[in-house]
């Protein structure tokens, strides 16, 4: 059975039917790039049914990977297991789970997400420095940003040496870099910053391992390539054979907005040169009203460093009204925000989750959130949340982590603390540690026995703990344990001995847990999600709750990447906001200003039906001129 390709346009079809060799697809916003990626993967898998090689699809977020997976399932009857849709971070973790022992990691390494944990590693690392260099930076908190910068740009000591050149603090920085990495490995830890770098180092030092991946993943596809940083690019280069690069890259240089994270407009040129890549352009836009496309085209030609021969966006939607585009000017920011919120208040609740307020900075959005509270409109702003905070889910997470690392005192502490909030039984960490030392030092066993030894433990809890001994402790069956734990916690909610506030955010976090768990299972298949992988994937993911259906959604432009909304309100279109103060200071042809222009381009092209642009005369007490981008877009101010 073949895949129906009749719904694709000519250019999309050309990309979807691309077989061997490298190809760059320059895809404008709303041009159906995710569709092109999924159709091509589906078609390749379908054409090669019966073969064993796999296809690797790397996306920018877990959400994007999840969406592609869902679409792929719609297109393919069988063989979708041969596609691995993942992110750079997840894939790096996967590489290190399989081959990490070459650099001293065990497969059950943990990914440090808390700043405090990373500071502890940095503190240990700084003790390792030789005396003559040790005083250059005081305190781990100050050292971490330096370490992060080095980790983002270098994946091994040799590169660091090249990068530092004749830097006056070269000796100190080199020692710090090496000591921090060594401390991580010693504790069987990784962090976001080192994860990809360690994988790159491994693949570059052991080309035979890279070759193994190249044989398994015969085709590699990358989405949003423009935002990859140096180490991500290096990882990519290791994953495709130089002589037969079946590398399919989707990118839009006009949507590059992660320069601050190491993305670079030059990387696209490097890619084209390195792989002698051909290009297919997808300028057709199926998302935005023609009026918005006109603004976008007007705006982006002011960036002079775009890809050679980049085509103008072509609108495919037909205008149905003249209200697709509105521009409003206000006296000050408070009025601007009040107006936006009052209009959203009028919007029927079922339509609100199709609306979004976009702002260049979180500070602008905080004002919207405050105004929403004022007017009694539910509002939502996505903030990365690295840990669960409610006692029930914290207990579950810590118990699983303790099962994974049976002598982790910190997790034991969390288990004891959360259990006290839930059940009212105080089990002391020291007692468990002391008791465990007589029996193989397994704190999970020690804790379970201590808990069961408490006379005041309720009957349902006792039976759950007995069950946990069989499932989690003895058989390592984490799935059975999680299921039982949620039933126990659900029942415990009405238990009188619980601390009053213990279950406050339980429902919400339980939903997030299930959502994340589902995502991980879909990515790998349930049988393949061991306890280690589950915990590692949870570490990589944010634990924030999804937006409630009736809430006004507020997003920074960066986090709106790849999303679309029926109605978009872009606020704060003034100098020093969009473009930012830093870019304004650097001048009109600076890298920073071009990136600001792209931010504006990304923001307006999120709109499916209506775009509302607002600006005001004063912000936070200062008079501000209308954004230069308004004029560039062809709007008379």
């Amino acid at each position, binding site marked *: 059975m073949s895949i129906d390709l009749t719904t694709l346009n000519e250019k999309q079809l050309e990309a979807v039917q691309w077989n061997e060799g490298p190809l760059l697809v320059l895809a404008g916003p709303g041009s159906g790039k995710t569709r092109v990626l999924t159709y091509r993967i589906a078609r390749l898998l379908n054409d090669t049914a019966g073969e064993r090689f796999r296809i690797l699809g790397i996306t920018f977020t877990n959400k994007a990977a999840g969406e592609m997976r869902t679409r792929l399932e719609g297109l393919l009857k069988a063989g979708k297991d041969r596609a691995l849709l993942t992110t750079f971070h997840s894939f790096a973790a996967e590489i290190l789970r399989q081959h990490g022992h070459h650099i001293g990691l065990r497969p059950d390494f943990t990914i440090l997400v808390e700043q405090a944990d990373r500071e502890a590693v940095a503190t240990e690392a700084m003790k390792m420095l030789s005396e003559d260099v040790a005083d250059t930076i005081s305190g781990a908190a100050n050292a971490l940003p330096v370490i992060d910068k080095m980790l983002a740009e270098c994946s091994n000591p040799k590169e660091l040496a090249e990068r530092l050149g004749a830097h006056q603090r070269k000796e100190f920085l080199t020692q710090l870099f090496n000591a921090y990495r060594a401390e991580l490995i010693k504790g069987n830890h990784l962090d976001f910053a080192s994860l990809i770098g360690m994988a790159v180092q491994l693949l570059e030092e052991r080309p035979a391992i890279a070759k*193994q991946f190249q044989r398994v993943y015969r085709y590699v596809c990358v989405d949003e390539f423009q935002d990859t940083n140096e180490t991500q690019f290096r990882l990519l280069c290791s994953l495709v054979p130089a002589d037969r690069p079946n590398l399919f890259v989707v990118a839009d240089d006009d949507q590059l907005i992660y320069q601050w994270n190491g993305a670079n407009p030059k990387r696209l040129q490097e890619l084209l040169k390195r792989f002698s890549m051909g290009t297919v352009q997808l300028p057709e836009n199926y998302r935005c009203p023609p009026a918005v496309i006109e603004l976008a085209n007007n705006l982006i030609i002011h960036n002079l460093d775009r890809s050679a021969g980049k085509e103008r966006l072509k609108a495919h939607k037909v205008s149905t009204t003249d209200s697709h585009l509105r521009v409003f000017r206000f006296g000050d920011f408070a009025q601007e925000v009040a107006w936006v919120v009052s209009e959203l208040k009028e919007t029927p609740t079922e339509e609100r989750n199709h609306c979004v307020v976009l702002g260049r900075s979180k500070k602008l959005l905080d004002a919207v959130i405050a105004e929403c509270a004022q007017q009694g409109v539910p509002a939502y702003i996505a903030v990365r949340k690295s840990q669960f905070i409610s006692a029930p889910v914290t207990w579950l997470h810590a118990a699983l982590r303790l099962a994974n690392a049976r002598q982790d005192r910190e997790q034991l502490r969390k288990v004891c603390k959360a259990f006290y909030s839930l059940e009212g039984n105080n089990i002391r960490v020291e007692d468990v540690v002391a008791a465990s030392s007589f029996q193989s030092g397994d704190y999970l066993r020690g804790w379970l026995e201590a808990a069961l030894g408490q006379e005041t433990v309720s009957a349902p809890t006792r039976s759950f703990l007995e069950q946990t001994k069989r499932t989690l402790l003895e058989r390592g069956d984490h799935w059975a344990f999680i299921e039982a734990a949620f039933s126990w916690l659900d029942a415990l909610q009405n238990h009188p001995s619980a601390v009053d506030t213990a279950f406050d955010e339980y429902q919400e976090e339980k939903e997030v847990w299930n959502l994340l768990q589902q995502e991980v299972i879909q990515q790998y298949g349930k049988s393949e999600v061991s306890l280690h992988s589950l915990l590692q994937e949870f570490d990589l993911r944010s634990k924030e709750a999804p937006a409630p259906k009736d809430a006004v959604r507020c997003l920074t432009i960066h986090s709106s990447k790849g999303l679309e909304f029926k109605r978009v309100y872009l606020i704060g279109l003034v100098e020093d906001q969009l473009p930012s103060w830093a870019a304004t200071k650097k001048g009109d042809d600076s890298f920073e200003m071009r990136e600001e222009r792209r931010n504006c381009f990304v923001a307006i092209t999120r709109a499916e039906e209506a775009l509302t642009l607002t600006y005001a005369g004063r912000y936070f007490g200062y008079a501000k001129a209308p954004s230069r981008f308004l004029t560039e877009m062809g709007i008379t101010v």
Partner: protein
Amino acid sequence: MLLTKISIKNFRGIDELTIPLEQCTVLIGENNTGKTSVLEAVHTCLSRNLSRKVVPFGEYDFHLTAAKPEPSSAPPIEMDFTFVESTEDEWPDAIVQGLDKAVQMRADNKQEVRFRIVAAYDAAIKDFTLEWSFLDLNNVELPTAKNPRIVAELQQLNPAFFLAAVRDAGQHFQSRSPFWGPFTKNPQIDEATRVELEEQIEAINQSVLDSHTPFNEVKTQVAKTGGLVPLAAADLVSVEAVPARIFDMLSKTQVKLAAKSGAKLPITQHGAGTQSLSVLFLFEAFLNARLAEAYDPDSEPLLALEEPESHLHPSAVRSLWKVLSSIKGQKIIATHSGELLAAVPLSSIRRLARKAGKVEVFQVKGATLTPDDERKIAYHVRAKRGNLLFAKSWLLVEGESEFWFLPEAARLLNFDFELEGVCCVEFAQCGLAPLIKLATDLGIEWHVLADGDPAGQKYATTARGLRGATPEAQRLTVLAEKDIEHAMWAQGYSAVYDAAVGAPQRANITAAAGTPAHTEQTIRMAISSTSKPHLAIAAVEAARQAGSPGLPATIQTAITTAVNNARL
């Protein structure tokens, strides 16, 4: 995909055993050392799909001891299978892609896969459970390789087959057999031909029934069934003298072998040896013609073969190695045949032997023998029909006199070398040191009986140098006399030698009786008149006579030590 190592723990009689394997590995060892268990372990774990976690072991497969006699209290069965590339990049894409996350990269850039199976009693569910996993190079479980697909691929790409010692053709040449079955299925006959053939068969069937009428009575009687239970209304009973359908006919196909008389007999009517061989060749035909279809084009079979020599005449066994070598894929063979072993390279042999109650595996280490030594020893092994490799203890002797003399002398001491597992090995041709090293590598006990002459002293020095920590008495006896003939002379058997000297040779004995020169001359002339073997037998015969002075103490010591070594 070469299985390079198998480690077994707590399986049947095996407590713990690790066997390095090659393209073709031959297991030898006494009964109950676990040879068959090894073959069956490989077959059990690699021939079927274990991804559903059904325990493939029976209760008696657990290692039961007097202390833990119940399978439920027995320690878990644990088996590790290690596959390593012979050269870098040897494995095809099918393996690298199919086994994917289980594939590890060694420091030498050869790829490796470690597969572990653990079967244990789970008291919580009161049943045996099976867990499989793939390991990294530190033997830590790989959490990413938990997809049952990988196990299925492993068994698909590396299917194991087992041919037991009893190879009954009746069982193997039937449609359910894994080797014969694939030949009889999926008829390669086009639809039109099939219809035409089935019409012709029906016509033949009809003419058989028309000419042979007694079936009519059966038809009439059997048709009564229709009156009692609901069955088809029309054409109720049909008699098929020949199968009416092609698929049915194929599944009943018989292979016949023409006997010497020219009569074409079904294979099952031939002797056990012929049946056994034909099953082996059927297996080869299956590998050549049907393996790719039944498994995968990239499949590499692994054959566990038990006693390929069974029921065969020694001369047939001698040519068996060539046949086995030509069968494709990896082979693990258990044998008790010296005839077969005589043709096997020493490096392919794994000797299983019980040491202090525990079975251990012995093999010739890579650096032990120079190519020249190996050539000489291989010659020796071939000449002795491999028997010395089955021995538990070697009595290393210089020449043919001892070789004839000692086994018979042992009988006088009420020892039977054959029964005890002692083998007299002459070392004059291939040198003493290589043989001692070989014995040490293979876990065979040894004892040297050296002459008292200067050459013998040199051998004694060699033996002392190689005895390691073992007491010298256990490894070496040196005759007080020049050689065994002089020793027997000194013991009082001068008459044996004197009588053997022929009339022409006697003229050469010039020394005065009673002098050492006289003894020397007489023995030399006796040998020249007869032969060393003759004298050896004559001397033993003399010792057997009533009232004989018995055997020299040194010879008794050497024999007793060799026997005690075998009993260790």
